[in-house]
C-alpha cells in the first residue's frame, strides 16, 4: 500500500485533511494513528491566531460551511506542545502552513526546517476565509508559483501545495506551481459558500461566507483532481468529500496518489481507518498487489 509523495514514502495513501483532525491527539480514542499514511495537522501560522468570531459552522445539504478563520496555536507552540505526541507514533506528519505575506510563509518554513518529526510541508495557498490570507496567493498562477518558490528555497522538506477550487482553471495554477518546484499538489480546499437564517435574516456565519466541505463537493473535487492529474507530473493528493472507501477509490482511479479525509471525520471519527480497510479489501478482491497499479487507471 506504500505510495510516494515526492521524496516522502508513506505506508498507505490515506491521510487526514488539515483542520479536520486537530493535532492528531483528539482522535486518540478512535484511531490508531500508526495505521494512517500521514497526519496533516491544522494549519499553522507564525503567531497564534484566535480565529473568527462565532458562529463558525453551519450544516448544509450533505456538507457543512466553516469559517473557523484559521485559528491555531502558532508554529512554535505546535513544535513545543503538539509535535511530541505525534512523534510517539510512526505516522508521517505533514505540517499545513499559511501566512498573510510571502515572508511569513518563509519564516514558518524556516522554523520547521530540520525539526525532527515533521516529514513534509503542505502550503495552504487556498483558504478562502481570511481576507488577507491564502486567497490572494492561490487564485493567480504567478502568485501561487512565487510562494511555492520561496517556501521551497526555505526548506529541505518535500513541499505539497494545496490548491483552491475557487478558480476558473485549476490546471493552469497546478502547472504553474509545479513549475515553481512543488513536490506534490493537494486539492481541493473548501469552496466558498454561504447560508442565511431566514427567521432572523442574518447570515448563519458571523463571517458571512465560509468554506463548503463534505460529500456535497466530492464531484467537484474529483473533477479537479482529474483535470490536474492529467497534466501534472508530480503526485496529486485528492481531498473533498471523501467519506467511504468507494469515494477514495474514485480519486485514486482518477489519478490521485493519495487521499485526505476531512469532514467525514466529524461524522465518523473512525472514517480514515474505514476508508483504509475498504481500499485494502478492494485490492485483495481484485488481486491488485500494489495500490500504485490502481492509480490513474480510469478507462475513457
Amino acid at each position, binding site marked *: 500500500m506504500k505510495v510516494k509523495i515526492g521524496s516522502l514514502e508513506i505506508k498507505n495513501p490515506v491521510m487526514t485533511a488539515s483542520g479536520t483532525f486537530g493535532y492528531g491527539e483528539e482522535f486518540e480514542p478512535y484511531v490508531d494513528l500508526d495505521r494512517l499514511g500521514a497526519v496533516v495537522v491544522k494549519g499553522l501560522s507564525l503567531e497564534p491566531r484566535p480565529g473568527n468570531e462565532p458562529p*463558525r459552522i453551519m450544516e448544509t445539504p450533505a456538507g457543512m460551511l*466553516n469559517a473557523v478563520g484559521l485559528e491555531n496555536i502558532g508554529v512554535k507552540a505546535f513544535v513545543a506542545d503538539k509535535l511530541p505526541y505525534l512523534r510517539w507514533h510512526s505516522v508521517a506528519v505533514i505540517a499545513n502552513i499559511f501566512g498573510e505575506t510571502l515572508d511569513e510563509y518563509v519564516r514558518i518554513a524556516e522554523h520547521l526546517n530540520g525539526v525532527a518529526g515533521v516529514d513534509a510541508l503542505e502550503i495552504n495557498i487556498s483558504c478562502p476565509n481570511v481576507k488577507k490570507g491564502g486567497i490572494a496567493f492561490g487564485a493567480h498562477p504567478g502568485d501561487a508559483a512565487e510562494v511555492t518558490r520561496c517556501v521551497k528555497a526555505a526548506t529541505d522538506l518535500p513541499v505539497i501545495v494545496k490548491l483552491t477550487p475557487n478558480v476558473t482553471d485549476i490546471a493552469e495554477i497546478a502547472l504553474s506551481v509545479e513549475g515553481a518546484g512543488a513536490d506534490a499538489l493537494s486539492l481541493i480546499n473548501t469552496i466558498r459558500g454561504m447560508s442565511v437564517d431566514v427567521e432572523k435574516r442574518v447570515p448563519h456565519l458571523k463571517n458571512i461566507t465560509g468554506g463548503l466541505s463534505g460529500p456535497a463537493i466530492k464531484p467537484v473535487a474529483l473533477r479537479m483532481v482529474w483535470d490536474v492529474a492529467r497534466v501534472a507530473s508530480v503526485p496529486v493528493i485528492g481531498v473533498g468529500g471523501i467519506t467511504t472507501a468507494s469515494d477514495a477509490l474514485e480519486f485514486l482511479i482518477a489519478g490521485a496518489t493519495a487521499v485526505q479525509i476531512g469532514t467525514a471525520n466529524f461524522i465518523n471519527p473512525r472514517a480514515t481507518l474505514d476508508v483504509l480497510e475498504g481500499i485494502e479489501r478492494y485490492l485483495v478482491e481484485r488481486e491488485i498487489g500494489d495500490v500504485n497499479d490502481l492509480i490513474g487507471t480510469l478507462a475513457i
Partner: protein
Amino acid sequence: MCDKAMESNRAVIVGIIRSNHPMTRDVFLMTVTVPHGFESAMPGQFVMVRVRGREFPFLPRPFSIHSLYREGEASTMEILYQVVGDGTRLLSSLGSGDELTILGPLGKGFDTRYDRRTVALIAGGIGIAPLHFLAQYYNKKNVHGEEKPRLVCFMGARTADGLIGRERMEQLCDAVMVSTDDGREGYCGMVTDCFVDNSKTMDTADLILYCCGPYEMMKRVALMAGDYSVPCQVSMEARMACGIGACLGCSVKMKSDGRPVRYGRVCKDGPVFDSKMIDW
C-alpha cells in the same frame, strides 16, 4: 477530574432506543440502552447522536446526558430534548428498537469539587436536561457517604407546560422553585428574578450555582454570581461538528482581560465553564 474517566470510555457506540415519549408538545424523553462502561459519565457531559443508517441530518447532534444508570450488563441513558429543527424532529419520530450512533460521553462536565452547603440548580426551559443528571449525582454521592449539600432547584419556563420533569426534580432536591413568564404557575417572571428573590435568604459564602438555559439567562446569572462572588458553572451551547475538539467550530469567546482574543471550544473545554471564564 472527570477527564481521565471520560477518555477511557470514548468510543463510537450503538444505542438502542427503549422508549421515546412526548413530555410536552415539543419536548421528548428518550431512553436508550448503551453498552456497559458508559456509567463513568459525569453530569454535564454530552453525547453526539446520529440516527443509525440515516444520511440525514449530515452532522451529529449534541445532547446532554439527562440521566444514566446501570442495568445488568448494560446502562440506560436518558436524553431530554426539544424539537427545534429537522434533526430533533427525526429523533421524535423514532421508537423502541431504533438505533442511534453515539459518540461519548464527551466534554467537561460540572465541577462538583466545591465544598458548599447549598447547591442551586438554575434551569431555563430545556436547560433542565443536564441539571437533572447533576441532581441525581448529588443524591448518589450522598449514598457513597459524603455529606449531601442542600439542593435547591430553580426551574423557569414560559408557561407551566414547560416546567419539564418538575416532579422528578422534587424527588431529588430539597426545594424546587418554579417560575413562569405568565405567572400561572409559581413565581411570575424570569427564573433569574425568582432566584434573586430567594437568594436573599441564602448564605452566598456557602453557595454554588449550576446553570443551564438560554444564553441571556445564563449571562444574567453569571453577572449576579460575579457580583456576589459566588462560584457559578454554566453549560454552554454552540453548533458542533466533531464534538471532540478537532474542528474548532463550536467556539465561545473567553474572557481575555486585555490579552489577545481567545476562544474556547464548547465541546472540549466545556460544555461546562466557570462563568467567570466566559466573555459574555
